């Protein structure tokens, strides 16, 4: 929450100066007349959506908290996440060690905080990659139709025919056990979702009147696709993206859990849960529960954020 509020406060000055933003955007200020409906900036819009929907407010606050932890967390943690100290192994949560210590005496809280950056970057990069690749494939398939559409669609169906986690396992095992390969594997298994979504959104609007109006206005096929059809597919894409961020984190953690992907001693939520699981039977629950709860919270945040993000990119939601 502390991290959420500075962001929202810093958004206020941007909202206060519509006149200058309007000018630089190339929006009309005919005769210097004042604009009756100020177009709120992205941050201002975010704020008004968050206010309208308390769940979105919670989601955005948690999201900013996660981002802040990922950025500044590693430099703020009380202990070195890799430093082992056998004398304090397996201590329960205390004022000294908030989340307790693990079997090597490492501070679980520090490890959970430091892992945020790695887990978030894996999922965000994987989602961005699959978003870009899926959008390009889906947009071309939906716009061109014909054999190109058939080809892209069948390739996507082929990917979907595999159990996705097993496919990801196979890719990582074949390409080698590195972080980049986890990202690629996660991206590849998510491409079909974006490609299918974009394809249908583009197909629906391809013959719409406003696309025809764009042709009449001298817009080429590429410009209509890029500046008319794709932006209109953004709102459902945002929902898909936020759900996918959650899946991607789970996928990365899952790969690490079964020993593919991030390798110990690197702090990562999935490995921590995997390693901690051995100790639950002997009563040392904190090893697995804290990274697990954090993981759950991150997925929960991304899933909650979908509706808010959709409203953010949909001008029809503006009053």
């Amino acid at each position, binding site marked *: 929450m502390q991290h959420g509020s500075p962001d929202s406060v810093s958004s206020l000055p941007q909202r206060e100066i519509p006149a200058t933003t*309007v000018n630089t955007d*190339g*929006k*009309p200020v*005919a*005769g210097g*007349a*004042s*604009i*009756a*409906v100020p*177009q709120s900036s992205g941050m201002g819009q975010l704020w008004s959506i968050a206010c*309208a929907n308390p769940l979105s407010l919670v989601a955005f606050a948690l999201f900013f908290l996660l981002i802040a932890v990922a950025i500044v967390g590693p430099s703020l943690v009380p202990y070195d996440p890799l430093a082992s100290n056998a004398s304090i192994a397996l201590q329960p949560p205390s004022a000294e060690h908030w989340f307790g210590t693990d079997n090597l005496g490492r501070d679980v809280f520090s490890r959970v905080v430091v892992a945020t950056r790695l887990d978030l970057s894996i999922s965000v990069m994987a989602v961005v990659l699959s978003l870009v690749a899926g959008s390009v494939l889906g947009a071309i398939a939906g716009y061109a139709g014909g054999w190109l559409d058939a080809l892209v669609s069948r390739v996507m169906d082929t990917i979907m025919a595999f159990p996705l986690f097993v496919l990801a396992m196979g890719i990582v095992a074949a390409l080698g056990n590195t972080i980049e390969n986890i990202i690629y594997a996660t991206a590849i298994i998510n491409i079909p979702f974006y490609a299918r979504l974009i394809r249908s959104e583009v197909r629906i609007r391809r013959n*719409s*009147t*406003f696309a*025809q*109006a*764009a*042709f*009449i*206005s*001298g*817009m*080429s*096929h590429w*410009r209509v696709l890029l500046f*008319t059809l794709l*932006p*209109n597919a953004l709102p459902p894409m945002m929902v898909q993206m936020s759900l996918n961020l959650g899946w991607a984190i789970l996928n990365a953690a899952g790969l690490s859990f079964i020993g593919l992907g991030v390798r110990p001693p690197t702090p990562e939520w999935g490995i921590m849960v995997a390693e901690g699981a051995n100790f639950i039977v002997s009563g040392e629950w904190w090893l697995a529960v804290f990274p697990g709860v954090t993981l759950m919270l991150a997925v929960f945040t991304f899933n909650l954020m979908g509706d808010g993000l959709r409203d953010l990119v949909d*001008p*029809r939601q*503006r*009053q």
Partner: protein
Amino acid sequence: MNMMTGAGQPQVAALDISKLDVNFTTRRGEVNAVKQLELSVPRGTVLGVVGESGSGKSVSAYAVLQLLEANGRVTGGSICFDGINLLELSSTELKDIRGREIAMIFQNPRAALNPVRSVGRQIADVLVAHSRVARSQSKAKAVELLQQVEIRDAESRYHAYPFELSGGMCQRVGIALALACEPRLLIADEPTTGLDITTQNSVMELMMTLVRQRQMSAILITHDLALASAYCDEVVVMRDGRRIESGRPEQLFNHPVDAYTRKLVDATPHKGKSVRQLLPAAQQQSAVVKAAPGEVVLSVKHLAREFRSASGTVQAVKDLSFDLRKGECLGLVGESGSGKSTTALMVARLLDTSAGSIQLFGDNPQEYVDIATIPSAKFMRHDQRARVQMVFQDAGDSIDPRHTAFQAIEQPLRGLTRQGRAQRRARVAELADLVGLPQHLLNRFPHQLSGGQRARVNIARAVAVSPDVLVLDEPTAALDVSIQAVVLNLLADLQAQLGLSYLFISHDLYVVRMLCDRVMVMCNGEVVESGDTGQVMNSPVHAYTRQLLSAMPALPGVDEATDAARSNRLRPPSLRL
């Protein structure tokens, strides 16, 4: 009150709505959609409720059957049907009244029918649900009902699915459904909106004949004053949820008391009215006088288009030829499927032609470019693109929902000119002034604009690059009459000011009569009649043109022939002439 069934007996109303209030809870708070509404439908009469969009006319009808959307509720007043206050009934008691006592006919017949059940079965379902007949006899009864609504071959149509029937047929099924249980009150919500004019005519005739035969009471909700006056005993005008004025149609439309009713009557196009007379006297500007048509700008020769489908080849347009002169307005009239929209799309070069040429003439009358030879997939980047622009039917759908009004108007300037940002901004401001769009609305999104404002944006965009030819595809079909009046005047002004040539596509003969110099009537892809507008409208030669003209509902007092037909229509069938 003035409709007496017997000798001076006090009349009990079939439906009595008093002090009705309906509220909707929206994101922006409570909206009072119907305010203190008073309506009364005497037994055996037809009440017309007219008003523009947002007037609350449909909401009041839905309130009667308590079919309001989840966020709406009745907050006050009473709705008495035969002395029973419907608002006090439980939902099971209401279920008995809905369909059996009060039936409803919906606006979009295709959407009102279940797409995966055959139409006959749907009628049978209603009969069984209200225990009119046993399941075993339901089929025979449903077929009988289909015959009553004049569906030919009812026996086999019983098994037809809604998608296999035309719009008019679907509405006939809708009527059969509504009348299945012999209700005493029928509520028809815009029953013929979206249907062709000749279909509208036959559907309305059928519906009203059945209503009168069965001595039912009915409420006809419509935006069309002429339609209401043709079929109703009494008409109520609504605006913003309030009752404005009521009376018998002749009296109401010939001598309106309220200013709003007068404005509506004025704005309704009818025979012998000019486009300027649609607006109140105060708003009738002394517009620029239109110059006589000049040289030929566009010459269409032997244009044809066929569509191939699995079921065969359809000739949408057959051998169409016409010339369009500078500053001329050529009307293209026809019903759905006549090929008029296909023609519009071909001339606007959004659709490829199958045969024929579309010649665009420049300053030199001997030189032309045949734009039909350029594939439509490439025409958008062609240097002739700016010379032919188009105004689309639904102004809302034709603006990218992510574009502001400014961006929409700017679009052709970006695509078709080399103007810099400052130039474009100045031009958009100029265009907004030209079409009468206030400057401060320019950075609104389409959903933040009213229908009339969207139409202005649409027109400003079409004239932005100063085209020679403007193709207008039903530019006012989706607008309320009062807004249509303003937009038609704007179009007339623009043509006079800019010397534009219009190809004006419409199904509304009155609109075409007011705006166009010449008119072509299309039927099944062919022009059946063409010529000077006045001549075609006053002395039509072709039977189809005559049929179209006679199907147009007219306001009372405008045309004696239609007045006579009206009074005949209002008589009980036994007394008809």
